[in-house]
């Protein structure tokens, strides 16, 4: 029987389930004229959820349902940013969705369901909970990608996403079953992550355990979108409606970090000397492939997809250090990345209008002449992604590089910096297009007049500058979560 303590620990998630059901009901029964109110209701729902997460956060790690669910500081940070950025995506999405006649309750409900999946996943204390959260996130994401079902690209992207993602979850599950089996050989079988930590010491089938680890790594690699498991990313980024791309680019990466940390450190921490080199190899592949292929992209969304691949390589740089400093650096990086990509896509959404996606890099030509403020915000996002001080992205890179050097992986850090200046080119190219090129003849630039959108976007992009000038508190928060 669940106790009151269990319920209280799970309160933010339970509240969100109830709230989503309410949103669905409201969507069905509201008068059409009042339906736009759903937007503000959904944002309020998310803000209340953030409040519940922060206010109810126990000082010590709390577990519920016999360790199935863990509520610690890592989960707290990830949830706060996942919910916050989901709310930001709502603000960015509204004019876009209205223009394309996609505005409706199902968008909000699916997004909140996906965010709920993220919350469950990052709080998982058990292999089953991880899968539960992942399934909730993935299923909602498939539907979200295909939301614009009459267009050509979205269904295609959704099918690709679904097939590859199903394969990857299959791998993950298969790996989990092996790990479960290995834990049963020579002891009591267990799915609990904390108990899995230490199976290596007694199991009579260590090779099975390691094989399971490899399969799980494939699943993690897919969720993070690191090479060579990255093939889905460009197509999904390109095909999905831009707000959904923003969500997948920002929030899903937070979730994937949570997944990787829970599985690798909490569950398999004692095998770190096995998975460290594998992560280092994945990191190298992502950094090289992501940065090189991004150079030749002409579509902004596809470029951002390859840029994501390279950035996830940096996250792996921190993870593969397998130290609390490394994890906190990786968490810092993934938060930073979420904010940067949200800002970049936000500018795209501000400029998009009915029949015009603003998704080609050439669509930004001469933006500085037509809309200097938006060009400036994009400039901040691009310099931050490129890792130029004093912007936020630079400090995140410094932290993961430092973690890698600290873990005696100087060569990996050098790969990191060498690929950083390869990557520099395509970010600078976007700035070049915006600032140095003249706008095309007859090109119309229409900046959305939605006040909330403009304000939130400005805050988002300026945060990259502000956090770049003063990143101490955020780092301290991340470090405390891992007990540095």
């Amino acid at each position: 029987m669940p106790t009151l303590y269990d319920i209280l620990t799970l309160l933010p998630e339970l509240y969100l389930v109830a709230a989503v059901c309410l949103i669905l009901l409201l969507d069905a029964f509201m008068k059409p004229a009042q339906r736009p109110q759903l937007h503000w209701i959904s944002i309020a729902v998310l803000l209340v959820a953030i409040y519940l997460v922060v206010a109810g956060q126990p000082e010590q790690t709390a577990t519920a349902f016999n360790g199935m669910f863990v509520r610690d500081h890592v989960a707290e940070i990830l949830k706060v940013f996942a919910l916050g950025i989901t709310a930001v995506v709502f603000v960015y999405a509204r004019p876009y969705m209205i223009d394309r006649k996609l505005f409706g309750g199902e968008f909000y409900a699916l997004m909140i369901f996906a965010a709920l999946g993220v919350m469950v996943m990052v709080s998982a204390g058990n292999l089953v909970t991880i899968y539960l959260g992942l399934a909730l996130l993935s299923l909602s994401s498939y539907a979200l990608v295909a939301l614009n079902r009459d267009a050509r690209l979205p269904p295609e992207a959704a099918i690709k996403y679904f097939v590859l993602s199903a394969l990857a979850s299959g791998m993950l599950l298969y790996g989990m079953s092996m790990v479960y089996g290995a834990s049963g050989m020579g002891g009591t079988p267990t799915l609990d992550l904390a108990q899995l930590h230490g199976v290596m010491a007694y199991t009579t089938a260590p090779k099975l355990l390691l094989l399971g680890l490899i399969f799980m790594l494939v699943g993690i690699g897919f969720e993070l979108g690191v090479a060579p498991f990255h093939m889905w990313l460009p197509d999904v980024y390109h095909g999905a409606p831009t707000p959904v791309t923003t969500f997948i680019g920002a929030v899903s990466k937070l979730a994937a970090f949570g997944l990787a940390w829970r599985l690798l450190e909490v569950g398999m921490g004692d095998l770190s000397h096995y998975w460290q080199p594998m992560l280092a190899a994945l990191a190298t592949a992502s950094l090289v492939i992501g940065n090189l292929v991004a150079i030749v992209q002409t579509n902004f969304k596809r470029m951002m997809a390859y840029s994501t691949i390279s950035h996830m390589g940096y996250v792996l740089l921190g993870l593969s250090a397998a130290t609390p400093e490394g994890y906190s650096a990786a968490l810092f990086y993934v938060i930073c990345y979420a904010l940067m990509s949200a800002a970049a896509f936000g500018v795209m959404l501000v400029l998009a209008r009915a029949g015009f996606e603003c998704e080609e890099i050439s669509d930004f030509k001469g933006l500085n002449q037509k809309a200097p403020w938006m060009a400036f915000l994009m400039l901040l996002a691009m310099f931050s992604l490129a890792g130029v001080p004093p912007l936020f992205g630079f400090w995140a890179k410094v932290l993961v590089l430092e973690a890698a050097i600290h873990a005696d992986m100087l060569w990996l850090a050098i790969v990191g910096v060498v690929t950083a200046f390869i990557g520099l080119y395509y970010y600078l190219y976007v700035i070049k297009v915006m600032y140095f090129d003249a706008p095309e003849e007859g090109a119309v630039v229409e900046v959305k007049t939605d006040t909330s959108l403009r304000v939130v976007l400005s805050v988002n992009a300026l945060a990259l500058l502000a956090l770049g000038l003063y990143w101490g508190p955020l780092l301290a928060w991340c470090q405390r979560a891992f007990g540095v």
Partner: protein
Amino acid sequence: MFNHLLSLLIWLPIVGAVPVLLAGSARPMLARWLALLITIATFVISLWLLRYDPEGSVMQLQETHVWISTWGVHFTLAVDGISVALILMTTFVGILVIAGAWKVIQNRPHQYMACMLLLEGLLIGVFCATDALVFYAFFEAVLIPMYILIGMWGGPRRVYATLKLFIYTFTGSVFMLIALLYLYQKAHTFDLATLAALPLTMKEQAWLFFGFLIAFAIKVPMVPVHTWLPDAHVEAPTGGSVWLAAVMLKIGTYGMVRFILPITPDAGAHFAWIVIVLSLVAIVYIGYVALVQEDMKKLVAYSSVAHMGFVTLGIFMAFMLVREGGNTDMASLGMQGAMVQMISHGFVSGAMFTCIGVMYDRTHTRQIKDYGGVINMMPWFGLFYVLFAMANCGLPGTSGFVGEFMVILASFSASPWIALFATFTLIIGAGYTLWLVKRVLWGPVTTEHVKHMTPMTPRETWVLIGFAVAVLAIGVWPQPLIHLMDSSVAHLVQQLAVHKI
């Protein structure tokens, strides 16, 4: 105010860029006046730096603000004599650059002025940071306004030039970042004074040395990584060229003085010959390259590379003199000469680029063959042009002479061969500069371009007077400048004499 003087100097232009931007393209005159007022205010405030006491402790006007406590990074600022001289040069050039661009920049002047102010603040930051991470942040951030500056207001191949500049310099700096992070592992701090005292093995020092050297050599720039500079100079607007030549190149040599000398003295001594050889190649070979240029800006750009060769020569010769001969006096002299050369080159090259800008604004060509007989149309301009050309080839009485002479004098003690090659500059430098003057200024008016040249405006005259005063003052009476930097140079020579293994 004196407790936060350096912070004020850094942030006044940077924060001042915001109202200039807000003035917008609708009110260009307001943007210009605001920018000018801010640079003048910065210069006036920077005059307080003259309170620096050369007899006192080396680092003065210290400021420490806790920045990132969990990482032990402090926002620490302080200046020694060398920084004071460089900051004063920066704030002075800042005014001239803004005034020089007054009418020339008609396309989005507010953004141009804001870029200028940002550059000024960031460069001042480079010269007063005493925490390696803070230094690095300023050092790299300088690229952002520079990238925009050349890309937006540059010539026809501006995009190529500005991308090349950014990628070249960024590439070098990331290796420095790795070196700094490695040092952080050992010392758990980025404080430069602590890093200077950190014992390091020869192998570590060698790696760190090359990490730093790549970063700074590209910025200086030294042969063979100098190729970005002619491109950037040719395409940059006049103001951009002036900043680039006058101040930005100096942050490379300044970085060497701040990082390589104190942190890796043993590796520095061991590998000094590499830098010395490259410096001599720059002085001699790049001098010849300058001789054949057909574009005035390219010529001056190559002559900048050659002159910066003197600075690197002076700095690294000190290793040879101290480590091999124990000749501290001569080492100080050479180092002193290098520092004077930095300041002098800042004014001379800035002035040369301004002169070229003045002609370019009238004719819209930088090809030497399009000129000839300019003196007939612009006599007063000719006066200034000849003065700066003389300074460029190191005529006594101008600032160009002082530094080069000191370096050559010191190099004789190190090795007559070095002195021989270094002295070549007097011939080659005179060759390309005087030939340039001959082809541009003298002779009859032969081309259409020159026929329509108009005399200088008062604004242009005042800008050139500003440069001329600086060039002559240092040339005629260099003692205050040398005295200002004396104890700092002595301290540097001490630092490079320390064995850290």
